[in-house]
């Protein structure tokens, strides 16, 4: 177990390093000079040089990287090229909004998808399963941006029940969250179902049946418990993906979350901010991946052994 955890954490640190370097070097791969963007096209060359020096952009790349990463460790993401205020101040107010939306979405999605998926697995090929499978097939073909626009059309413009944009009252949250839940529902049901079917095919389930245990007991004690663990871990570790998926929904409903900020920063070429958001989301993803690997390895010795090759 210790070897497994160490291996995963070690790999994670290397990944984090690579990802952060990739994100950092993005700014040098981008078209246009950040200084020119800051000062405008008409600035004098000597002023540009001064600005470049002020932001430390005239130093070697590696020195800048080390500086940048040390700054971030202290919560300093640099200064926005466009607005000349600390990037962290811009981003930090957006994080709670995005998190709130994604966590609520995730809970609702879980509450609907897990029972549905489990039921589909138990009653495979019965009417409910067929309907769910076919509905989710159609649902996976519906892009979330169109779904959001349709929701606005139906419930905001058509029926006038909910506002189309903003985030002041609970009513503002209904449509975005519905869009978020619906767009992730199909894949979550599918994941739950395939996971539960895997467990149903396990030998210990056959054993439980062979022992003469009643069906209900086999399902609750053996199947439900074992499949739920994996599903829960998988779902909650997909949070960063959900945040990035919410970008589109935030954009359409005008919610000032991280995704919306990133999109407008891309358009305004405020690369510092883009960089910070990409870094935050990828670091979150890497951490969630490591955590889920470790938790799953804890729960299921088979995964652990396949990674460390059998030594404890």
């Amino acid at each position, binding site marked *: 177990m210790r070897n497994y955890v160490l291996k995963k954490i070690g790999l994670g640190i290397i990944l984090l390093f690579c990802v952060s370097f990739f994100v950092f070097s993005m700014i040098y791969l981008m078209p246009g000079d950040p200084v020119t963007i800051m000062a405008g096209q008409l600035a004098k060359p000597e002023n540009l040089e001064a600005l470049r020096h002020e932001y430390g952009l005239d130093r070697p790349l590696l020195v800048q990287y080390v500086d940048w990463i040390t700054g971030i460790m202290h919560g300093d993401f640099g200064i926005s090229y466009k607005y000349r205020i600390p990037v962290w101040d811009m981003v930090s107010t957006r994080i709670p909004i995005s998190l709130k939306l994604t966590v609520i979405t995730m809970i609702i999605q879980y509450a609907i998808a897990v029972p549905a998926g489990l039921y589909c697995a138990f009653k495979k090929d019965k009417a409910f399963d067929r309907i769910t499978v076919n509905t989710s097939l159609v649902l996976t073909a519906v892009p979330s941006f169109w779904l959001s626009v*349709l929701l606005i059309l139906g419930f905001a413009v058509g029926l006038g029940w909910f506002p189309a944009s903003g985030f002041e009252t609970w009513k503002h949250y209904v449509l975005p969250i519905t869009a978020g839940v619906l767009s992730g529902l199909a894949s979550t049901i599918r994941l739950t179902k395939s996971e539960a079917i895997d467990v149903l095919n396990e030998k210990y389930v056959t054993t439980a049946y062979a022992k003469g245990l009643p069906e209900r007991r086999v399902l609750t004690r053996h199947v439900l418990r074992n499949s739920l663990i994996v599903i829960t871990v998988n779902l909650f570790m997909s949070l960063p993906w959900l945040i*990035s998926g919410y970008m589109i929904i935030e954009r359409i409903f005008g919610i000032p979350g991280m995704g919306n900020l990133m999109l407008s920063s891309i358009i305004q070429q405020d690369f510092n901010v883009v960089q910070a958001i990409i870094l935050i989301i990828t670091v979150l993803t890497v951490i969630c991946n490591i955590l889920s690997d470790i938790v799953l390895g804890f729960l299921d010795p088979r995964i652990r052994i396949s990674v460390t090759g059998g030594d404890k």
Partner: protein
Amino acid sequence: MNQSPIKEFFTSCYKNVNFMIGFIMVLSVIVVAIFANQIAPYGYDAADPTSILLAPSGEHLFGTDNMGRDLFSRIVYGTRITLQVALIGAGLQLVIGVTLGLLSGYFGGPLDKGLTFLADLTYCIPGLIMALAVVTIIGSGLTNAIIAISIVNWASYTRMVRAKTMSIRNQAFIETGISFGESSRSIMFRYILPNIVPVIIVTVSMQLPGTIMSTTTLSFLGVGSMPPSPDWGLMVSESIDYIARGPWMCIFPGLALVYTVFGFNILGEGLRDLLDVRMKSQ
């Protein structure tokens, strides 16, 4: 019962409902794209200031948009863009993914370790974020959006091809080939590649809907196709401002997109059953 294998394959295709429905749906999109000039009554950017935001009628089947362009014609021309995305996207991902997968699976060792690590790295970054990052670097536009999506997606091809290559590279016929003095390249592309074609076909068909969807999403976000392109994602994003006055502007392009993606989706499901490739859809 003594049918030829090919005939047998076609009979089983015929019996597979998913495959047939998907095939017909995709075929219809292809036909529309080929005969777009004949089908569309107007040009895709033929603006008519006298007929702005007209509701669907006999003259304008799907209505007109805010510039007076016929939506039906625009959607018909949009099939070309969608298929272009599918073709170029799948092609790019295939070339990158299959080559790297073959190299990684055949040679193993440090090369394999490095490539696997790179694949893991791309799995760490949510797809949309990475695609946006790439588009920010290489610039907007449809081709660049397709490139961005391919850079995001190559890893799943590589993984699949690598696993398959590893499983057959120790078989006797490979050894025979090596003992005949075949070069590594010839072994990879003439011995291994034909044997993994079914896996590749299934992987392509499973990835295609996602590729179309992500590229359209990029167009919707304004970093893919540029106006006046009749890209369905772009059309939906242009419709938002006129949603109360012309709801048809957002409904029809979306329906076309759902139709196409759904067609590709069940075609993929059908192919997977037909070619009997065991894959767990994640």
